[in-house]
């Protein structure tokens, strides 16, 4: 098999995930796009490992081992990421990453306040934290 097939597919999948990370607004959709990028890297690792296991005399099968490690780390990442997203959703009432700009510099609180008064589900803890952040 030509090595360009898996390499090109991997590059295209990576860029699809890149677009998703940059363009999506829901935090869980961003996590899905991160999974796409990790899978593109996995495909590259497997393809180059299969190629090297034929050409080199003796290999450590490092590509497949690293793929397994990447899969395990991705599982851990998705667990932690979802826990963070759920905690943010419980505190703020939203999983929209465009509205979570408390630590953003440069944007003084005009758009934040407009969004915050628009969302009726913002809880008092979030509001006090936001007051502390803007004070």
């Amino acid at each position, binding site marked *: 098999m030509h090595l360009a097939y898996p390499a090109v597919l991997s590059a295209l999948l990576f860029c699809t995930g890149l677009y998703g990370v940059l363009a999506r607004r829901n935090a869980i959709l961003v996590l899905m796009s991160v999974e796409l990028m990790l899978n593109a890297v996995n495909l590259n690792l497997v393809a180059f490992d299969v190629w090297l296991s034929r050409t080199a005399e003796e290999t450590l*099968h490092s590509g497949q081992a690293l793929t397994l490690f990447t899969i395990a780390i991705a599982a851990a990442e998705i667990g932690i990421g979802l826990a963070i997203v759920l905690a943010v959703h419980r505190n703020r009432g939203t999983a929209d990453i465009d509205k979570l700009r408390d630590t953003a510099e440069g944007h003084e609180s005009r758009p934040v306040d407009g969004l915050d008064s628009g969302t009726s589900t913002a809880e008092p803890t979030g509001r006090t934290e936001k007051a502390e952040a803007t004070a």
Partner: protein
Amino acid sequence: MTLAQAPHGFLSPTGVEIAFLLVGLVTFGAALVTVTTRQLVHAALWLVVTLGGLAVEYLLLTAEFIAWVQVLIYVGSVVVLLLFGLMLTRAPIGRSPDADSGNRWAALTVAVAAAAALVWVVVDAFRTTWIDLDGPAAGSTKVTGASLFQNWVLPFEALSVLLLAALVGAIVLSRKAKAETSSPPVNSQATTESSPSVPDARKIPAEQEGAR
């Protein structure tokens, strides 16, 4: 390290290459739908198609153990976890018009530029490189297990520690948020008593579990 000595050709693709190309088209199309659809649950379901297609690609590359691990972990657990997250954050069923943010066109520009650059470089670099898929499988369970437990034992064990840390971290994250928020529906009857509010809040889901 090129293997261009064999009678390979661009214009005579083998059966494996044709299968890889077709499955790759399906995978890439599903990935595109995943990042562009406006229905959040559909995005998770198209992600299943993408990950399953990648498992088929691993099988075509004779890495069967990776393929089954991909099916087990990604399709089996990660997508289910993502669906749970979508449901728990009250994702709207149906179209949500604000799924994409305002910088969509900048993101599209960056992604297309990166894709063009990467594809050009990769095709130019590996134009005369071929994978030899004949012979014994390069990624059978025996080969993968032998290399994993002979050469990669220490990272493997460290990875188990990492998974344990992630498990504990996820539990701590979700429990701490539950104790802090003191949202009205959970702790409304626990406001009369001062100190044992946390065990009481812990008891209520257990009772609900028992009632089910």
